[in-house]
């Protein structure tokens, strides 16, 4: 259960980005891999707890969950690994590398449209 710390790291990064652009964040996008040891539901819960009754209340969290994918070293086919079966569905060999599934990545932040002051 370290999702609370992860949520705080996300919020720190979002606030830093918003501050440099002098704007208010409204949405943040994350990519969470199935091998990242992060539970998306626990992360959402932590995120809501940390933003409640703060300036960031209502900030939307968009999580893209990334399945474990491997690339065959023999024929370059990319495939999802299910039930720990590592054989290439194309050529049948089991020499391959992990290309996705470990993500714990900040993908984007959406900020309020900047409106030049008319005053």
């Amino acid at each position, binding site marked *: 259960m370290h999702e609370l710390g992860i949520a705080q790291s996300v919020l720190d990064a979002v606030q830093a980005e918003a501050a440099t652009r002098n704007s208010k964040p409204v949405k943040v996008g994350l990519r969470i891999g199935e091998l990242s040891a*992060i539970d998306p539901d626990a992360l959402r819960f932590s995120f809501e707890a940390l933003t409640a009754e703060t300036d960031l209340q209502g900030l939307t969290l968009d999580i893209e969950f990334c399945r474990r994918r491997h690339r065959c070293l023999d024929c370059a086919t990319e495939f999802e690994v299910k039930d720990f079966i590592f054989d290439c569905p194309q050529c049948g060999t089991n020499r391959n590398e992990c290309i996705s599934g470990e993500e714990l990545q900040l993908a984007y932040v959406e900020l309020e449209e900047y409106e030049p002051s008319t005053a």
Partner: protein
Amino acid sequence: MNRVPLEKKVLSENDRVAAELRERFRQNDVLVVNLISSPGSGKTTLLEKTLEALPRTERVAVLTGDIQTENDANRLKRSGFPTKQITTGGTCHLDARMIDKHLADWNLGELGILFIENVGNLVCPSSYDLGEAAKIVLLSVTEGEDKPLKYPSIFFKSELVIITKTDLLPYVPFDIAKAEENARKVHPGVEVVRVSCTAGYGLQEWLQWLEVKKTAVRQEAESYV
């Protein structure tokens, strides 16, 4: 809406500190291993036996993490090697900053091997790079042989799986071949060592793994220069 692509790791600050640590370990030719397991799998006992077995001339130190108490450090200090307790006060894992802080008054140039004993937890420590050369996961025979399947992240990220308490195999329904098969399902080709600290089985194999790793790290450091 104004979407700004960020594309950076959530733990980029931890990773930055870890990268600095890794560079310092490389410059000082220190092998750093990060031991991870459930509570009670035998990390401290393995370290006790390892420290006992290593020659007094070996320059070894230990950082041991727990939520509370100095008990583990007190156990390991009996070896005579420098040992420091990191009490996290509630945090369920060690992070790079804690390592950096606790290394502050040690001269890395005087060290050959640094063992980091993480907080007993199979989940959270897998997310935090500590600048180590290798993560090592322990699994004891009193646990389930399906643990690698239940906690794939840490078994995938570890270079070595140590199966501990093997002297208890006659008394527990633990299928050790199945446990190894499960570990290799999650992490094809991962090395496995079977150890009993009580009976002394497998300790030589584990020490040999350390020796090989130390040589590999040194060669890597030399090729870098």
